[in-house]
Structure formats: C-alpha cells, structure tokens
C-alpha cells in the first residue's frame, strides 16, 4: 500500500467516486480552476469538466441549497465549504432542509449529499480559520457527522459518505491535511459510517478522540505507556450516529474514560460521551469521566502563544491521563 497524505486520500476518493458514478458532482467556491484552497479537488475539473466540477458564486447557503435541490433531483453532490468557520450562513440549508427532507416527506424524498469542510485549529488561523463545528451538527437527527483521522479513513469514509442515502457532514482536520500520512488501500476501499475504531488497545483507561486530537492522544498514550499506564484509544470516526457500544465496551474493560476534543468544552462531544457512559456504564466506572477540550472561548485566538495556551496538546493530554489513572 502506498503511503499518502490525508489531502491526497481525499482527492483520490473524490476522483474514484466521480469516475464510478456519473451522478457525483463537486461544487463550491474555488473548487474548479484552482482545485480548492487546500487543493483537495485539483485535477478534477480537467478530468470531469465544468458540468460536474462547478466553481460557484461565493454563497455558502446557495452552495448547500443548490446541492440539496440537485440531490433531490437525482445527483450525488459533494459541496465544499472552504472553511468550517464559513458554514454558518448555510446552517439553515443543512439543518432545516437537508436534515429534515426525509422525515418531513414521510420518506418520499431523500437528500444524499456530502458537505465537506476543513475544520479545527493548530494552524495559527485565528478565530475564523480554526473553528470546531461538529457539535452543532451532531445534535441534529437526519445528519451524519464524520471526521476521519487517518488518510485511509479519509478515503474510505468519504467514499461511504458519497454513497450514503442521507446528508453527511464530512469534517476534515485541516491541520492534518499534509501532516498526517499513512497507508491508503488502492482502489475501491470503503469504511462504513458508524463504527468507531480501536486505535490502540489498553487496560487502565479509555481515551476517546477524533480528528487531529486522535494523533495527539496517541502520542500522549505512548508517553504514559512508558510510565506503566496502558491507555486504550478509541477513534470515534463517526460522531453521529455515535457508536455508543464501542465507548461502553471499552470502559467496561478499563473503568476510566477521558474524552479529548478541540471543540469548546460545554455541550461538546465530551458531554454526550460522558452521558452515554453515565447511562450505560456507570457501575463499570472507577473514576469520574474526564473531559479535556478547548475552554469556552469563541474559537482559538490568532497569536501563537494564545493558541498554544488553550488548545489541547500531547503534554496536557498525557497529564490528564496520569491524573485519571491515579483517580
């Protein structure tokens, strides 16, 4: 298997799905001639033409709204929002329209679209190029929310998202686009939406993470391993629908849980994971569930020292693991 960067795996998935299925189109600001600001769609215009790779006017609600209409009328649109921070004008189209179409029409219409968008911090992007938006969408039944943390998953999950009959919000950890490399299976490799992945087995505590935080959590787990703390790391991969079983089964084994995410602390994935464990694994817990997340500030500040002051890093995660192991 070839080793690839995450951005290359995403491009490969788009290319293969467009070749496989003529209903797949790509649309968004800059996706055509430029190939996307992160070049995820580079080369697709030349290969599939401007009818299927559409440089749109700058209009987030319009991009998603057009994708919704196209999806209802037989296409498989993959809409790109340049940064997750710019997705808010499209929230109504995503939440009130895409997510509700199947339910409100009593199953008569579906909305098979993918909204891809780079998200997350750690790139010195400041408030409007660093946001984590997953909890907004994971709250909404009708949507599926997927976050890959490896190039293989990025390819496999994106292919699954494009083939899914329902709307999928596909959040790409942009700090990892080039930083994260890994083996990517050639050809038609699909990773099902839903199941979490055990990224590392362990016995003393469970650390739950996704996206870029998964890698920092793995780093921290390797560090505390040397101190005799065995951490089981769960990569959620799909935030909605959430793999409750994977969380519960792991905690039954370890008795402790730490949830790491770079979204704001309050009402983020940590709250949901903790609630699941309280409901379904309380008597297996040997210590209170712990969350490590961005504090409740309106996204990460621009200056490097300020960003570093708030964003979870491997050192802080390792410290949280040590404290939890002793608790």
């Amino acid at each position, binding site marked *: 298997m070839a080793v690839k960067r995450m951005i290359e795996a995403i491009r490969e998935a788009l290319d293969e799905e467009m070749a496989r299925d003529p209903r797949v*189109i790509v649309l968004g600001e800059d996706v055509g001639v430029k190939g996307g600001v992160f070049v995820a769609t580079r080369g697709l215009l030349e290969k599939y033409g401007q*009818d*299927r790779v*559409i440089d*749109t*006017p700058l*209009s987030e*609600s*319009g991009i*998603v*709204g*057009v*994708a*919704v*209409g*196209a*999806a*209802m*009328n*037989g*296409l498989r*649109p993959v809409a790109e929002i340049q940064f997750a921070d710019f997705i808010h*004008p499209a929230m*109504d*189209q995503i939440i*009130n*329209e895409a997510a*509700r*179409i*199947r*339910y*409100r*029409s*009593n*199953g*008569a*219409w*579906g909305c098979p679209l993918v909204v891809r968008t780079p998200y997350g911090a750690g790139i010195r992007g400041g408030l409007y190029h660093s946001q984590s938006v997953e909890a907004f969408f994971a709250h909404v*039944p*009708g949507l*599926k929310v997927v976050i890959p943390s490896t190039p293989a998953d990025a390819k496999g999950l994106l292919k699954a998202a494009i083939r*899914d*009959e*329902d709307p999928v919000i596909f959040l790409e950890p942009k700090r990892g686009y080039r930083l994260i490399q890994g083996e990517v299976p050639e050809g038609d490799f699909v990773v099902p939406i839903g199941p979490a992945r055990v990224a590392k087995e362990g016995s003393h505590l469970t650390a739950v993470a996704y996206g870029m935080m998964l890698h920092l959590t793995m780093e921290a787990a390797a560090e505390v391993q040397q101190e005799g703390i065995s951490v089981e790391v769960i990569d959620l991969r799909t935030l909605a629908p959430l793999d409750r079983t994977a969380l519960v089964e792991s905690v039954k084994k370890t008795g402790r849980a730490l949830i790491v995410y770079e979204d704001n602390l309050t009402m983020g994935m940590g709250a949901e994971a903790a609630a699941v464990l309280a409901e379904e694994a309380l008597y297996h817990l040997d210590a209170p569930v712990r969350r490590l997340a961005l504090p409740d500030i309106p996204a990460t500040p621009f200056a490097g020292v300020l960003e570093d002051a708030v964003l979870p890093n491997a050192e802080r995660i390792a410290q949280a693991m040590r404290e939890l192991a002793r608790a």
Partner: protein
Amino acid sequence: MYRFMVLSRALDERMWIIQRQGKVPFVITAHGQEAAQVGAAMALRPGQDVIVPYYRDMALMLTLGMTPRELMLNVFSRAEDPNGGGRQMPAHFSLPRLRVLTGSSPVGTQIPHAAGAALASRLRGEDSVTFCSFGEGATSTGDFHEGVNFAAVLKLPVIFFCENNQYAISVPVRRQMAVESAAQRAAGYGIEGRSVDGQDPVPVYLAVSEAAERARAGRGPTLIEVRTYRFVPHTSDDDDRTYRTRSEVEEFRQKDPIPLMRRRLEEAGLWDEQREKALRDEVAAIVDDAADYAERAPRPDPASVMRHVYAD
C-alpha cells in the same frame, strides 16, 4: 382554467370552515391567488417539469394533478397524506409522482433548491424546466439572491415565480422592497424579468409559457412577478384586521379573479347560468367527497414516529 379556479376556491372555503369547526388546527390557502396559480400550472408539464412550490400554492397543486382528496388528507394530517403522512404542516407540498420537491416553512429556502434541481435536470439531459414559486417577502431573503444568482450565472432552466400578494403576513410590499416590482430585480442578475396581472390567468399562462420556452432553449432563468392579492388572513392563526382595512380588502375583492373570469367567459359566449350551476354542483360533490374521505381516513400510527430519520 375556470373549473380549477372554482374548485380550488371551494376546497379552500371548506378548509377554513373545517378549521373553524375545530376539526383541524391550521389552514393556509390560495384564496385570491387562484388565477395566478392556475395560469402558471397550465403552462407546465405535470410529471415532467420539476415543481418547487411554497405554502400558498394549493390551486397550483390542484391544477398540476394533486387530487382534492389528497389536499384534504393533507389538511387533516392523515396517514395517507402524500405530502408528509401527517409529519409536515398543511400546504407544505411534496409529491414525487408530480416531481414536486418537499418544502419547508422558512421563506425563500426553496429557491436554491430549484437552481440545484435544474442543474441536475440539465446534467442528466432531461427536457424539463424547474418552476419555483414564492411570495414577495421571499425576495428579501439571502436565499433568493443566492439561488437566482446561481441560476443566472449557470443559465439554468428555471422559472422564478413571485406571487406578490401585497403582504408578507402583516408587512406591506412597500416595506418589503424599494423597487416598484419584484421583476425589476431580474436586471440585477442579468436575466429576463416580467410583471403581469395575477388576477387574470391568461397573461400568467403566456408569461410562464414564454419563460419555459426560454429555459428549454438554453437561454436561462426568468423572474416573473404576478401582481395579486390574498383576501384572507395569512393563515388561520392570523387576524389581518390588525394590519389592513376592510375597505382595502373590499376594493381588491372587486378584482376577484373568479367572477372576472366568469364574466369574460360569458361575454365570449362560452358560459351561461346552466353551465355555472352544473360546475358548482360538480364542485360541491367533489369537495364533500374529499372532506368526508379525509376526515374518515386513519390517523398516522404513533409507532411510526421514529421512521424516516434516515434511509431504512
């Protein structure tokens, strides 16, 4: 045209009675806008053209082929209602057999959908036009701009059909737009704009037919404004006496499209008292049947409430 206008009005009046009787919680109807909607529907090809309506399009839906029973099932929120099986509010139309896309309540959101549907039709090489209707209030939304602009830039086969009934709930059109006519906005997008009398189905039919021809010829979208008036409150929950005078409503009643159309047919020698009576009897029977059928139809099964969140 006249038959559909009369039938729509009769269904409409029965729906308000049913609501006032407390049998259903809510109605929203086409009262006063029948000519505009019937005229437009007559210019479309049911089942071939894609329809993206809004919540006041009962006469449009009836003319395209939604049956009176189906409309009544919708008002009664019965399991058999094809629009949503009791999940969606009345008048939020959805009907795959007529290619009517499902819609929501926030206004204007369907306008980008129409652009997307037209994009899909063109990509698949279909000979179809997408027809998208909305009130004048929707022209103030961002989605109106984004959807029309998108369709204009890509020269998509769409007809944007603005039913200007003078009020967005209580806000009069002069507080909605600083231009004389919604159609003037078309120039800003580089597309054709037309403003026509919405109390007469014939010019509406002609305008929509021309727009459909233009769309099929690859010459892009058209924005049509039809000037009309709603004689009743926005919905059964609204009281329009708080924002408009009775004399104003009475003044517009003089332009009620149904008597106007009847007079025109009589003057042309195509209509008489006998034909009118026969039509009224036929319509009364249809409305009775639809209302009785829908009232007796089973309610949705509460056990089904978790279905259709995702594909099964």
